[in-house]
């Protein structure tokens, strides 16, 4: 991406709502279901 010439460098504080998590949790695969024991 062409942004043109550098004008200045500075530090910017974080926005207020930055308390939200960085990453949405990945969906976890469902655990395999143990077959029910059938009484002999």
């Amino acid at each position, binding site marked *: 991406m062409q942004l*043109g010439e550098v004008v200045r460098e*500075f530090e910017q*504080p974080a926005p207020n709502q930055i308390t939200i998590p960085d990453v949405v949790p990945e*969906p976890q695969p469902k655990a395999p279901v143990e077959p029910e024991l059938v009484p002999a």
Partner: protein
Amino acid sequence: MSNDLIGYRTWLLKIGSKYLVRETDDGGWERYAAGPPTLRLCSLSTECYWNGPVQHSGRAPSGVNCSGLYALKTLEAAADYSPNPVVGEVAMWGKIVQHAHGWRAEHMLIKRLVLLMCRLPLSDAGSHIKQVAVLGKILETRYQCDVIVDASESWLSPTERFLNRLASGTLTSTELEQLAKELS
């Protein structure tokens, strides 16, 4: 009033996994997919997936490198930059390098996404509205921001607009004559 530094950028829409890095047996490092592949935004210049609303640059930007997350000054500039179907508004913070036409930032937060409907690769097998609604919901959940759908055709190039009208049979004879003149 918000003092956020706001910029605009565009992304590719791709199916990909979240990647993490782990040490290998021989002491090296390797990237591995941590989870199933799903629809994500991806940066244009590198295979960098955005896994959530916040993205960090691998290296802080400075006047002597080209690192950082890039943003332009207007939504229109971002949409014109590349014919991608997603553009959006981001808040930037940390180390910032300001350029004539935009910024490079150390960190970004997605604040709003806009789906440019005419650029989405929608299937004719089902309802376009339904496809866009599902896509909007997926992006809204992952990026925790408003997702707006822009159904305007103004984002099409003149050639795409012409081909659309040709396909829909709405070209007038005057326009065809004008085109013939331009081509001759």
